[in-house]
């Protein structure tokens, strides 16, 4: 054969993609619709305005797919009109990922004391208590939160989804 040939990678990978968008009506629906319309996964998604003066929101999407699908997702996101800037934090270098969770535990005194020990060990904060409930706040990587919840066995959980940025000097800011 005359030319070299490229190997296709079919292994599933988890990617964290950060997207800076104009905070206009429908922008979140546009991004979510792109995933649902083409059958791609969203493992987690967070969004909030990050620059009030410039009306910019930052969306952090954690998604799983083959290399080809991840590339396709990035290309599709990149061509949306309100998308200002996009970074695949997973491939561009070290990444800081944090998630916040609230977890509620109920039970007798012994059960609650066990929960306090777990929380202390995992660095979770007690933020609310009644005679038979405790509510904790924990931040950390998704894996940290998974292990905390496994140990805690809470009756109710609320997770914020992943927020992320690159380690070191790299930043995501709107293109000039």
């Amino acid at each position, binding site marked *: *054969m005359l030319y070299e040939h490229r190997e296709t990678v079919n292994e599933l990978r988890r990617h964290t993609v950060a997207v800076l968008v104009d905070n206009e009506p429908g922008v979140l629906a*546009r991004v979510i*619709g792109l995933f649902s319309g083409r059958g791609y996964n969203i493992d987690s998604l967070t969004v909030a305005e990050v620059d009030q003066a410039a009306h910019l929101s930052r969306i952090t999407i954690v998604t799983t797919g083959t290399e*080809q699908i991840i590339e396709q997702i990035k290309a*599709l996101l990149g*061509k949306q*009109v309100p998308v200002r800037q996009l970074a695949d934090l997973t491939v561009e270098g070290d990444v800081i990922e944090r998630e916040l969770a609230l977890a509620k535990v109920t039970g007798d005194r012994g059960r609650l004391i066990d929960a306090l020990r777990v929380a202390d060990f995992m660095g979770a904060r007690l933020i609310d208590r009644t005679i038979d409930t405790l509510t904790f706040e924990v931040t950390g990587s998704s894996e940290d939160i998974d292990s905390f919840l496994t140990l805690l066995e809470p009756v109710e959980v609320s997770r914020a989804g992943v927020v992320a940025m690159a380690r070191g000097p790299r930043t995501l800011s709107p293109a000039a």
Partner: protein
Amino acid sequence: MSDAPSIAAAPADTSLTGADVLLRALVDQDVEHVFGYPGGAVLPIYDAIFKQNHLQHILVRHEQGAVHAAEGYARSTGKVGVVLVTSGPGATNTVTGLTDALMDSVPIVVLTGQVPTHMIGNDAFQEADTVGITRPCTKHNYLVKDSDDIARVVHEAFHVARAGRPGPVVIDLPKDVMLAAARYVGKEEVVHKTYQPRRLPQEDRIERAVDLIARAQRPIFYVGGGVINAGLEACQTLRALIRETGYPVTQTLMGLGAFPASDPQFIGMLGMHGTYEANMAMHGCDLMICIGARFDDRVTGRLDGFSPGSFKIHVDIDPSSINKNIQVDLPIVADCGEALKALLSCWRRRNHQMDEVRLAPWWEAIKGWQSRNSLGFVMSPTSIKPQYAIQRLWHFTRDLDTYITTEVGQHQMWAAQHYHFDEPFRWMTSGGLGTMGYGLPAAMGVQMAHPDSLVVDIAGEASWVMNMQEMSTLVQYHLPVKSFILNNSYMGMVRQWQDFFHGNRHAESYMDSLPDFVRLAEAFGAVGLRATTPAELDDVIQEMIAVKRPVIADIVVDRAENVYPMIPGGAAHNEIMLSPEDPSAPVKGSEDGMQTV
């Protein structure tokens, strides 16, 4: 959006309403024709239209027709097509056309009325969530809530529709916003800061591409509609490059006309109903130069059997079209025109010449495949073969100023195979979405843009009936569109697949009680003609051309004819079926074929 230009400097003209500003912005965007249908929510806009003479409004008979007309208008001129419809059903009726324009990269702007802002969300009469419904079938859409935003949004919408890979844009306009006082901003004051798709190719990739092009043994150019969207100059550069290399070229359904069909270097359309030589050359090439095409499933056949030994160069302005279906080796994200210019100038700078000795074995192989005459069919003395009808139509219209549109199905494939396009912008067909009912309203849009040209809708009777209400529009506006209906009383392509994959069981693909098309034409105030034998055909075609009024030509054709060649679903390019007698027809009735669309 955040980057609204400052309009503080604009003269405050309080006498303008939102509707006035809307029309002024359209005129500023060089819009001359608007295809539309009125209703309650857009009455202020229609009132403003009534009071001016810059824009002509064409009253269609169904909103779907308006969108296809705007598509035909856009694709035959390179301009942006414009549609105006009312809220609710007016807006929902545009969804098929919007999706069609999105799939086929057609720049259109669709203005939809909306209930007044204070009623939005109240399930008001003729309310629909238009931006919600059209979000997945537009390139972008807007809901304008402040009348001072109207002009900026219109200018942005035209930019978005045109820039990068073209597509449809919706602007939803609540009635109160149209009645409110509004300020105007000129188009030169609105620059979209963020949406500026890359146009220029990376020079190192162009150099690498020319390296590969210069030493390929079995090269092929695979050209799509992106080159036509890039404009006339892009098509001319393409022609120069292909002729200087001496390489064979195949085109997609959407690309026909970019390179002249009559040129010996053109080896026919490729894909499911492409020529044997084009598909075999795609399969056997060592270098594929794809320009402005998107490796659609109708083109590739079975993905793991697609051109297995080739190095693939892909030029496309849309980064999401690259590596979507087929992994390519050298992607070039750029406007096709700019990329072609760069390729040609690099080729010339390095003094590359056509090398006939290097290419001789490849052209010899191609000539061998061509000798199979894959577009051949068996003539009949008694019944009109649909392929023959198109050949005769081509014979009588090739030297005229002719535009062709089609519906969707067998007739569309025969038109693509047997009507030979030497120029771009002359061929309007629904490729991606496959919208039956596209051709007649599209032809209406083409004729509006080219009033003195011959515009023919090559149609099947089933598709044509889907939007036949537009005959009434044609008569009203004196648009002499010719409907050339290849009438076989079947949804032919459905019947063909039932023949191949479902044991000849023709479930619901036969239409009883079709109208008498000649009398139907007369009822509309048009001219009806009919041919039922080959002997009558030429006279009917000539009369159809001569009559300067809308014509329905009912060409009664052989009911059993199927489209060949055919790459059945689940097959690769080299597994192409040439005829019903083809012993190499491998997968007739296979599970694979049944499961693909």
